[in-house]
């Protein structure tokens, strides 16, 4: 269950978790249809980047690229400047807790690209 197609399918399933299909089926859009449409969009996004120059595996790890750990440290610096000292310190602590070597680098790179992309948690009154 580790093939790219299966993993992308699982990612699509995660993103439509919680959608009500019973009511939707009456309107003509089935779960399978939505899943197919999501997969199409996922592959479209994946391939759009794949064929852009400078995105091949070799150039991504080239000397001109900032290592993802440094990018996380830059975010940590921004947090400090914004007055979020505790979060910045925790972030640096967690970075230090990751295993040595660059095995976690692609995941860190992904997290940096997604940083701030989620909606802020709802404020309670």
């Amino acid at each position, binding site marked *: 269950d580790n093939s790219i197609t299966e*993993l992308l399918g699982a990612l699509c399933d995660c993103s439509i978790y919680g959608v009500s299909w019973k009511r939707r089926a009456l309107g003509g859009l089935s779960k399978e249809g939505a899943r197919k449409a999501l997969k199409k969009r996922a592959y479209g996004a994946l391939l759009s980047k794949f064929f852009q120059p400078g995105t091949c595996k070799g150039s991504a790890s080239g000397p001109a690229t900032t290592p993802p750990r440094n990018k996380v440290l830059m975010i940590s610096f921004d947090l400090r400047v914004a007055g979020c000292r505790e979060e910045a310190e925790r972030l640096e602590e967690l970075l230090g807790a990751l295993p040595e070597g660059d095995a976690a680098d*692609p995941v860190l790179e992904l997290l940096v690209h997604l940083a*701030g992309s989620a909606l802020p948690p709802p404020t309670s009154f």
Partner: protein
Amino acid sequence: MASGANANMNAVRETMDVLLEISRLLNTGLDMESLSICVRLCEQGINPEALSLVIKELRKASDSLKASDNSTN
């Protein structure tokens, strides 16, 4: 042999916990399940930047599905 496998499992779990907390601090919106799928996709050599586009695209699509879900309520 079994204890070696257990130690390895614990190390993987700890790394996942650390990555999940980093993910939360960075406000990426990934839950544990999505994160573990992303980790495996990265292990398969998927470009992280391309994967981030995939996730953003899937979010847009599911948001519009959920929004239309709410409007019919």
